[in-house]
């Protein structure tokens, strides 16, 4: 369609300092049954976004039922007690909207968007999907085939495959090792009864957070939310199972797959998003691989032509994080690229970063963070996620101050601690 961006064009254009966003009023309310709702009034564009997060994801899964959180949501969107999946799809399209549901590692999400004048319909459909899913036995095998096709697609994609193998190696027994989509074996085991049981165990008001952002009035949205979600029975659910700790093991794993490019991933376990070292590791990752002035991009790609992709990733997560340094390169360059990557890791542990590099990294990091929170869709997600992770509504401001306070010594210490003995995965063409 003309108005849709190409896959490639979805590069996030990052930047700008964290200003100009605080002004929009945010209202938060916990209903008597434990359900939480957050509304952000943003008058600027005639749109609305909702994010309904549920405390349910791979972090609470076991290997034998890996992917069940996501699978439950795949079946949920097939229809409700009132409407077929096709009827829901037609209804949401008529609102100029989108509605989807998926499981992730730290949460599951039903998310939707629409033109703002249809906010009430969007909220109603979201509630219908969440509270009255049909979960029909017939939908289970069909959706299993569909999810299996996506598992296959990930296995066929060199980059996705490399990241999946890397996390499996790095996290070991910790459930972040599990693929969000599940595995062939686990999906074969998940039957209709398991889907229903899992849904019932987790769709409880105290585990749910709804955030709404857009051209709406908080009072109206709160009233509608109380009406839609207030009747859910609250009360004690079962406590979460203990989560196994990752077993530290610095390993080098080589995988062969049909591909043109070699993928090289190297990194280690890192702090969770509410840990005191979080900001220092964010800055460390940005010095190494954030943006085009990051060391991996500037040195390995631009100066030495050893890689095309060169970046570092460290996502904020509730459990142990992962700092990943990533290169995508030609087979002829692979050995030199891996050596150069080791060289960069050794260098940042050995030498403090310069004041200019530190300032660049902080500017880039905070700019990107502010840029990412400009749309209603992202705002709704951030508000709901911070609430679910229980890090506090002032997290963005505390995070900004923590990043600004990071020193060159902090970065060096973080490198020495979290990149002490990196795990490495190489995926190369067969």
């Amino acid at each position: 369609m003309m108005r849709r961006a190409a896959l490639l064009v979805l590069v996030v254009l990052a930047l700008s300092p964290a200003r100009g966003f605080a002004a929009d009023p945010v209202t938060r309310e916990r209903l008597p049954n434990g359900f939480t709702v957050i509304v952000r009034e943003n008058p600027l564009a005639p749109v609305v976004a909702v994010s309904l997060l549920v405390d349910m994801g791979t972090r609470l899964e076991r290997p034998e039922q890996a992917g069940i959180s996501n699978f439950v949501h795949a079946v949920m969107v097939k229809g409700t007690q009132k409407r077929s999946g096709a009827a829901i799809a037609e209804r949401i399209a008529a609102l100029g909207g989108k509605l989807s549901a998926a499981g992730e590692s730290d949460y599951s999400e039903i998310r939707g968007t629409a033109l703002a004048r249809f906010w009430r319909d969007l909220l109603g459909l979201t509630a219908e999907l969440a509270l009255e899913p049909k979960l029909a036995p017939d939908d289970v095998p069909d959706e299993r085939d569909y999810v299996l096709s996506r598992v296959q697609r990930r296995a066929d994609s060199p980059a996705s495959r490399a990241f999946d193998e890397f996390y499996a190696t790095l996290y070991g027994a910790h459930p972040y090792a599990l693929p969000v989509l599940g595995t062939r074996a686990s999906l074969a085991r998940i039957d209709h009864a398991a889907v229903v049981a899992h849904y019932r165990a987790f769709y409880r008001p105290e585990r749910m957070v709804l955030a709404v952002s857009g051209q709406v009035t908080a009072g109206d949205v709160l009233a509608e939310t109380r009406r839609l979600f207030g009747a859910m029975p609250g009360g004690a659910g079962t406590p979460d199972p203990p989560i196994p700790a990752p077993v530290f093991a610095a390993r080098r794993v080589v995988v062969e797959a049909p591909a043109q490019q070699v993928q090289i991933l190297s990194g280690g376990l890192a702090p969770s998003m509410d840990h005191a070292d979080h900001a220092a590791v964010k800055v460390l990752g940005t010095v190494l691989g954030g943006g085009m002035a990051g060391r991996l991009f500037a040195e390995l790609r631009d100066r030495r032509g050893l890689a095309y992709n060169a970046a570092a990733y460290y996502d904020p997560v509730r459990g142990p994080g992962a700092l990943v340094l990533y290169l995508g390169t030609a087979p002829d360059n692979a050995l030199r690229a891996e050596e150069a990557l080791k060289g960069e890791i050794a260098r940042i542990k050995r030498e403090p970063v310069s004041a200019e590099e530190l300032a660049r990294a902080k500017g880039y990091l905070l700019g990107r963070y502010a840029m990412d929170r400009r749309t209603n869709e992202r705002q709704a997600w951030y508000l709901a996620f911070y609430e679910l992770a229980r890090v506090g509504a002032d997290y963005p401001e505390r995070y900004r101050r923590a990043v600004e306070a990071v020193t060159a010594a902090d970065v060096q210490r973080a490198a020495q601690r979290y990149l002490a003995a990196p795990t490495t995965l190489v995926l190369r063409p067969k």
Partner: protein
Amino acid sequence: MLASRVPAGLVLALLLVLGAASGCAVVSDGREGRGAGGGDLPRPTREVLPNGVVMIVQPHRASDVVALQLWMRVGGRDEAPDDLGLSHYLEHMLFKGTASRPPGSIDRMIEGFGGASNAFTSYDYTHYDVVLPAEHVRSGIELLADIAVNASFPPEEIDGERQVVFEEMRLLEDDTDRFLVRRLYETAYAEHPYGRPILGPRPLIETLTRERLDRYYKKLYAPANMTIVVVGAVTPRQVRPVVAATFGRLAARPAPRATVAPSVPDGARRSVSVDRAEKQAYLGLAWKAAPISGADVLAVDLLTYILGDSPSSRLNLAVRERDRLVFTIESGYGAWEKGGLVTVTARLDPVNLDRAERSILDVIRRVQAEGVTETERQRAIITAESAYAFDIETAEGLAKAYGQAETTWNLDGELGYLAKLRQITAAEIQAAARKYFGTDAMPYSARVRFVPR
């Protein structure tokens, strides 16, 4: 393409791999968004400077940032046979340095401000994008005017970038969805410039010299081919003098583009089958349709929405949900200056290749025979309205819509797009289906199959 059916985990991985790390992106599949006007914003200011540079300014106060985009009327279609790939190579080189800016300093400056840059090459245009805190608007405009004419092409940077472009070629081949659309364009357009690889053929890139690159740059990077778009927390009064003092001072000179014949539906049918390493098959069908300024562009746009834009589209309901022949299916419309192409792409089990194709063509024949419903027409219009409303949430989204319209079409057309779209009737949509979407004897312009080895 990354809409609701794709799991966030995969989106993330794709962004990680395709986006965050790549200095540029090639728009090779024509799925560029043409922004739609008619929203709540005031009219943008558009001025043509005496030397031919077009300036477009739009205040946008959603945040304290400004999006600056330099749009060049230079793209893959301007390349002579031994220039293939130069538009894209230039795009890689411009942020590398100028006479007064050493290699690396441009990225450090932008990222130090908390900003970001990117650049894109397509058939009809190339654009250079910067987003910055609004207080740095002057530095941003000065930078874009500088790279537009003073790029220095340091020899060691040119050599280093060769490997990067080769990597980009490998990456494209590893990305099945993008590669499928690339092959569809190649197959449908054959010898026409829209059938060429934007990245260029490898042998030409291997032997590319600084002189050739510089000659191509000096020939086409002239004021008459430039549009500077500024959208954000700024006013035309602030921006005008800065643009006048930078872009306004560039010397006017003729910069004729290569003549490219329009590509019209020609009754040809081409088909290729490619052996691939994936375990799943991919099917792509394409039809030549109206170019961006064509009279039928709005009807084809609505038809494409109705066929394959969402889970409630006809192809999804029939081929995926009812017949269960594909895992995913969608349609796209690339409306270019000299031609248009509608594509339908699906991922499926290889045993279903023939049946899925028949099912897709059945859906199309039915639209041709019976037309579309009023409900479908209205839903497609609301979808377009909504896509526009979400685009204008960010300064860069709006800047892109304006830049693309000015470069390949015209700004007024862009601003009146939604209003005109609302007037398209169901009969016009059916007529477009009959005109462009083939017959039993000639069912498509191009077909590409990826078949597991």
